[in-house]
């Protein structure tokens, strides 16, 4: 036992040395990596497609467990049997208050895990870890003593050279030394008293660190760019115009409603290094379930937005849900594809939105090319307008007697990322089709705030599917129903050149499907898969990494 621990300690030291020798050069982020997973989607395209082929349709039957690692959140080992040592290091504690406010359900891994130089960097709300990618040992653990705030999730960390960045629910941006887990600095990124909460994975682009924040109490959403070395603010883009007269302000009745229109930025976007444009979706307008105090389209809420990453200026915006009244933000991952559309090569952006419509846009200009529903339960839109936007049927707003609407407020899709496979030319998304009855329970529109004023009864799930869409036509190539006894669940997806599509299913399996047909090829029953699968090559071995709750599972071929 002693010998084993000693060996482990030595290997930890040599690993740390390897990491310090290289860090993460931000220039490398523009090249799709196969030996690392250095940013939220693996690369900037949002495709979640890996060119790795070691694990493929022929040998997937031999895919087996490499290691399991349980990551307990909280202030660290306590109690009479607690001990620390290699693989179980003491917790580094940060924060501005003495005792953290108790929170519930905050230990679930539901975002990206970074893998750089053989080290995994994992986060959940208020917690961050470095883990040996070869065996799952914990190298360090950082815990942030929270003041509170909405602990709905943490979507991962960003990395620049030897430094890591993650957000806390009480609105701090924390920078850690990747080698030691020690804090470099932390700074306030939004106002806790206005009930902001922060979950997004920071994205590093060149010398920009892009950081979003969200709010369920009407405060405006925004994206900030910080200097990754100093933490100094470079620019700040608000989801709503900053004054009347600015472009977009004509879509609001007055300044007060516009500047309390919500639209947080809570899911990382994609980036085109040639155009210098960063693409992401904004959240729903607020008050969320009634438009009575915010007549108009409410730009730039529920929008796909293109910002110049150097200046933070808006290049273009497209609004999947104009004047949304069902909490359907457009905060899904936009996917960048260079491909043919109507016989012409184009720079495209593909987006499956929470409202159940799939969009193809020209990502240079924002020109709309295609709008199609990708679920067959949708009943909230009266049609598609000239700009390609579905427009709502006001009768499907929440009413005192109830409105029967699909999707439910969680949407046909939520934050879980889709994938695009250039080998099949298909876009894949996991969908959940639910009917809800939406009731307006607040008679006084003046009392509406955030998400209040309604009740929602979820009536039935019609099915959870993996849906494959041919972006050139908008036609559904195939849909695979994930059978389940009760309510299903949505999942993030990843495809590989080994002709595999990875997803969780509704009955706690991690599954590999044939991306051409949707036929299941391999599975293992590890519990609800709570993030999207990642893959990378290490020591000549391709790994598949998945999370279920507070536990990481790594798979590889046994040879």
């Amino acid at each position, binding site marked *: 036992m002693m010998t084993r621990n000693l060996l482990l300690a030595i290997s930890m030291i040599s690993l740390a040395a390897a990491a310090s020798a290289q860090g993460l050069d931000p220039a490398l982020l523009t090249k799709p990596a196969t030996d690392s997973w250095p940013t939220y989607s693996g690369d900037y395209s949002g495709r979640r497609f890996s060119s790795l082929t070691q694990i493929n349709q022929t040998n997937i039957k031999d895919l087996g467990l490499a290691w399991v690692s349980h990551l307990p959140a909280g202030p660290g080992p306590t109690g009479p049997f607690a001990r620390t040592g290699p693989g179980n290091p003491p917790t580094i504690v940060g924060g501005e208050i003495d005792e953290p406010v108790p929170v519930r359900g905050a230990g679930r891994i539901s975002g990206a895990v970074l893998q750089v130089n053989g080290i995994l960097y994992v986060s959940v709300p208020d917690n961050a870890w470095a883990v040996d990618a070869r065996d799952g040992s914990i190298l360090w653990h950082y815990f942030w003593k929270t003041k509170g705030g*909405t602990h709905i999730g943490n979507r991962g960390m960003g990395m620049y050279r030897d430094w890591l960045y993650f957000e806390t629910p009480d609105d701090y941006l924390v920078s850690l030394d990747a080698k030691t887990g020690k804090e470099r600095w932390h700074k306030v990124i939004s106002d*806790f008293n206005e009930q902001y909460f922060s979950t997004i994975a920071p994205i590093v682009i060149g010398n920009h660190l892009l950081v979003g924040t969200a709010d369920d109490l009407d405060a405006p959403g925004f994206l900030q760019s910080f200097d990754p070395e100093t933490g100094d603010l470079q620019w700040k883009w608000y989801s709503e115009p900053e004054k009347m007269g600015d472009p977009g302000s004509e879509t609001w009745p007055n300044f007060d409603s516009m500047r309390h229109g919500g639209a947080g930025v809570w899911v990382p976007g994609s980036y085109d290094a040639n155009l210098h444009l960063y693409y992401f979706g904004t959240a729903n307008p607020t008050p969320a379930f009634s438009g009575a105090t915010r007549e108009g389209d409410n730009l730039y809420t529920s929008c796909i937005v293109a910002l110049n990453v150097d200046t933070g200026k808006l290049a273009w915006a497209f609004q999947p849900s104009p004047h949304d009244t069902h909490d359907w933000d457009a905060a899904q991952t936009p996917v960048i594809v260079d491909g043919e559309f109507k016989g012409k090569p184009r720079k495209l952006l593909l987006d499956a939105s929470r409202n159940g419509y799939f969009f193809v846009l020209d990502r240079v200009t924002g020109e709309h090319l295609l709008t199609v529903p990708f679920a067959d339960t949708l009943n909230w839109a009266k049609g598609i307008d000239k700009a390609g936007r579905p427009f709502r049927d006001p009768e499907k707003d929440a009413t005192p007697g109830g409105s029967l609407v699909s999707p439910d407020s969680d949407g046909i899709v939520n934050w879980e990322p889709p994938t695009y496979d250039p080998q099949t030319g298909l876009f894949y998304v996991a969908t959940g089709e639910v009917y809800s009855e939406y009731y307006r329970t*607040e008679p006084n529109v003046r009392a509406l705030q955030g998400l209040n004023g309604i009740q929602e009864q979820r009536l039935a799930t019609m099915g959870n599917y993996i849906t494959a869409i041919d972006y050139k036509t908008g036609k559904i190539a195939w849909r695979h129903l994930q059978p389940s006894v009760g309510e299903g669940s949505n999942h993030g997806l990843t495809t590989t050149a080994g002709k595999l599509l990875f997803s969780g299913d509704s009955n706690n399996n991690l599954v590999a499907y044939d991306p051409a047909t949707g036929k299941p090829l391999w599975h293992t029953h590890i519990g609800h898969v709570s993030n999207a699968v990642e893959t990378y090559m290490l020591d000549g071995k391709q790994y598949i990494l998945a999370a279920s709750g507070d536990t990481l599972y790594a798979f590889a071929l046994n040879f």
Partner: protein
Amino acid sequence: MSRVKLLFSAFLGLGTVALVAAQSTAPATPTEAGANQATPQTPAGSPPPPPQAPPAVRVVRPSAYPVRPPADPAAVARGKQIFSANCSFCHGSDARGGEQGPNLIRSELVLNDKDGELIANVVQNGRLDKGMPKFDLPTADIATIAAFIHSMPVGGRAETTGTVNPLVGDAQAGQAYFNGAGKCNTCHSVSGDLAGIGSRFTDVRALQGVMLSGAVRGESLENPRKTVTVTLRDGQTFEGRLYQIDDFIVSLTDAEGNYHSYVRHGDYPKVVVKDPLQPHMDMLRTLKDDDIHNLTAYLVTIQ
């Protein structure tokens, strides 16, 4: 008093509790009102519950954000008077904004104010560039204004402050739909399985939810609603209540309580799942809101 009125009065009772909660000086606590929770029934003719009655139907979640300590009710009352006289003309009597002034409840400055120290600065100096004049009010009075504004519920899931009647349909039209176009009477009877359904629910929305989903009360892991027939390659057949199913396994509990599970390989074994609620689920694709409201109004009358 008809049953309809009784139901509505029960609902009013609930609304009264919520209204009282909203007007009290207690700090706002985000709560979640479950639509399927039964509301306490108010006997016909009885007075509404006293203001102290605990809102038993509410599931109170601890706030994710710090709540303000309750203020002295006398200070809140005085602050309200001073606000009415000086501020409500522009900001509205409820401080939620007017033609001239913004909503103060969710204002960045107000949310960062503790006891009037930030508000006093604005009140005493004005915001002349935005059209707000100076007010010559003593700091102590402004502290009571702050107490009044801070006493109002703030939160993205803040409690509903009034009463809405969810019973908006026409019972006669609902009856016609039940026996006609809706074809409800092909499976259901108001003197049979639905006898007294209107008396089983005090919350109209809960009744409506059950009507639409057809949800079987008491459904659970031990008592699942779906059944399954599994036919093996050799022709053996097993039937029972479906316990779990995915692309790789199907399992059931048979009539004797024995558990059986089968690995699925492609088309074998053959699996046929029956969901007694499938007709209700299929209905959701075409049902119209008016028909739903009318049906609900009709079922409420079934005593």
